[in-house]
């Protein structure tokens, strides 16, 4: 056993030396997302946006030759962990980025940071990583899960809306969303209903909802659940009767399938394709030109992720061994983000604006339109649990 440990130590030392010696070599970024299966559509949005970011940077991130290795996590935590190990130990990437799902992120992020590699999350925002488990090497370009429902809660509170009916799938994120909502919404809740994860038919719940006769409905139904719920809500004739407020339910990945059934829907979000700033407009225009469809926030934050890495490498002048320098640079968020200028909180989560969006009839199809700013420079609720100081 002792000789084995010796061998292990030797191997580690050799690996570290190899990394050191390759400081001037090209930068390698491992990008993990879900590419196969139904959720592969989100992965496609993210991957296409990474490609666009590379185009905008002349295929050189931080001025170095760049190789991005895309890996599929199949939406499984253990597969995500395995591809992360592969990226770290076999491909020896300098950065790992991506990750859609909270559970995959919770398995992957500690693996990456534990190996001394920088991790840039571009979607999942589990509260653990914003609070107790925050890490110097972990950044996110998206948000903490709760921030978005908090924005919706605040908006509805501001509007003095009451008698709200709440629905979400029966799993951890669903309950987190409702908790985030309730952190700012203090009005009367008619009922809280949790449905089966992956449920297809909501007719029974919609029937019960109508019988309860609320003044407003707040839901969280990501992906195909959202498509189904919105269609059935509209088909039940409730669209014109009870206003629907949602988070992570209507976006550019699902809008094409929902169509008119989304009209009039309110969403809260930190970014929308119609956001008026130079970086965002350039991103949206070039994205549509190159890929022929409208980008989503999944894409925008992935695009940002590459730009964040770019800013870090430039700050250390290509010295990829200088992790401290890169972390310091990333904390400045010194790049042209699609959301406009923002700052990082102590826990490496963005302090950013949140907007109220509404689904409206656009030129040819239904699109999301920013109505107003709900939060300016909103911090997540967990940063005080994060022991990091800087």
């Amino acid at each position, binding site marked *: 056993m002792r000789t084995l440990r010796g061998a292990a130590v030797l191997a580690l030392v050799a690996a570290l030396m190899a990394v050191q010696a390759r400081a001037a070599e090209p930068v390698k970024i491992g990008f993990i997302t879900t590419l*196969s*299966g*139904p959720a*592969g*559509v989100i992965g*496609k949005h993210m991957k296409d946006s990474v490609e666009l970011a590379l185009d905008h940077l002349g295929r050189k991130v931080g001025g170095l030759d760049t190789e991005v290795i895309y890996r599929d996590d199949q939406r499984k935590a253990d597969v995500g962990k395995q591809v992360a190990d592969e990226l770290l130990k076999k491909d020896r990437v300098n950065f790992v980025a991506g990750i859609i799902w909270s559970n995959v992120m919770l398995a992957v992020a500690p693996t990456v940071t534990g190996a001394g590699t920088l991790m840039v999350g571009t979607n999942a925002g589990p509260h653990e990583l914003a609070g107790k488990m925050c890490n110097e090497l972990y950044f996110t370009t998206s948000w903490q899960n709760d921030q978005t429902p908090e924005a919706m809660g605040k908006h509805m509170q501001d509007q003095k809306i009451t008698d709200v009916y709440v629905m979400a799938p*029966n799993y951890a994120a669903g309950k987190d969303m409702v908790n985030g909502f309730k952190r700012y919404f203090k009005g009367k809740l008619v009922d*809280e*209903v*949790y*449905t*089966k*994860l*992956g449920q*297809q*038919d909501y*007719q*029974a*719940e919609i*029937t*019960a909802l109508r*019988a309860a006769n609320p003044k407003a409905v707040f839901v969280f139904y990501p992906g*195909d659940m959202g*498509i*189904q719920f919105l*269609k*059935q809500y509209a*088909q*039940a*004739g409730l669209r014109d009767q009870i206003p629907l407020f949602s988070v992570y339910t209507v976006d550019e*990945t*699902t809008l*094409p*399938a*929902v*169509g*008119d*059934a989304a009209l009039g829907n309110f969403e809260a979000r930190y970014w929308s394709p119609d956001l008026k700033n130079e970086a965002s407009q350039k991103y949206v225009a070039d994205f549509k030109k190159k890929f022929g469809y409208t980008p989503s926030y999944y894409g925008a934050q992935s695009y940002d992720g590459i730009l964040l890495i770019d800013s870090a490498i430039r700050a250390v002048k290509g010295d990829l061994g200088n992790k401290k320098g890169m972390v310091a640079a990333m904390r400045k968020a010194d790049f042209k983000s699609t959301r406009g200028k923002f700052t990082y909180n102590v826990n490496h989560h963005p302090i950013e604006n949140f907007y109220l969006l509404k689904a409206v009839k656009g030129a040819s199809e239904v699109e999301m339109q920013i109505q107003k700013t709900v939060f300016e420079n909103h911090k997540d609720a967990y940063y005080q649990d994060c022991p990091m100081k800087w």
Partner: protein
Amino acid sequence: MSWLLVLEQCLNGLQFGVMLFLMAAGLTLVFGIMNLVNLAHGSLYMVGAYFATAAFGWTGSFVLSVVFSLLATLAVGMVVEVVALRTLYERDHLDQVLATFGLILFFNEAVAMVWGRTALFTTVPKALSGHLQLLPGLRYPAYRAVIILVGLAVALLLYVVVSRTRLGMLIRAGASNRTMVAALGVNVRLLYTIVFGVGAALAGLGGLMAGPIYTVQPGMGDDILIQVLVVIVIGGIGSIRGALVGAVVVGMVDTLGRAFLKPMLSTTIGPAAANDAGPALASMLIYILMAAVLSFRPQGLFPAARG
């Protein structure tokens, strides 16, 4: 809760049950006659939904899209039967489960390659988008009412075909004694291909009707497949009658469980606990039902003659 609400939830349960029946009928026929466990049945449901959506895009006519989808799914089913499944009839169920599991992977990915992974847009045809006033105080979506009617019509049609026609006689005979049917000089291979195709078309019918209310996307058939398997196991594999009863029972139990379990629990164990236990229990309900049925009747409610 008013009795009107209960009635409406029962209609919802019936509608879900009818949807399950359309899938279950084909699956149970194929099992009863060819002794084939076809996990890829959900893929045919998906294919039906995709064909209908695509055809609606080309023609703009709902009726044409229905006809096209039915024929196309029938054709796909027959091709799959001839190419892949025919050799599996004499194999044990394990081989069948595995091979058709492989077909699921193939179909999900093939659909994603052709139509992309983004869910497709479909909606209820204009003529059916309204509501029916069934009773004072009870309005029901027209489209869902149509689903119920179509499902019941199919059930009736299947009953007539199976019990009154020569094809039905062969089907019944085939379910109980395969060699005898062959001895009658019937082209068994062709019979099998046709039956499989019809089963596929029924699944396609389920899929095309589901499209406007659910999501048309790769893998859409997987979850419903598991529920349909529960249906035919509860009903008794190989029995059309069992499929109908099983489907309605499962549809009702699932729907009513989702609708009333939580309110009922909250009166006994309190609202907070009910909020945790209710949804969890509701999602397990049909599996609990199945385990219970099989504990008392290991062959389901209506065991096929072949035992």
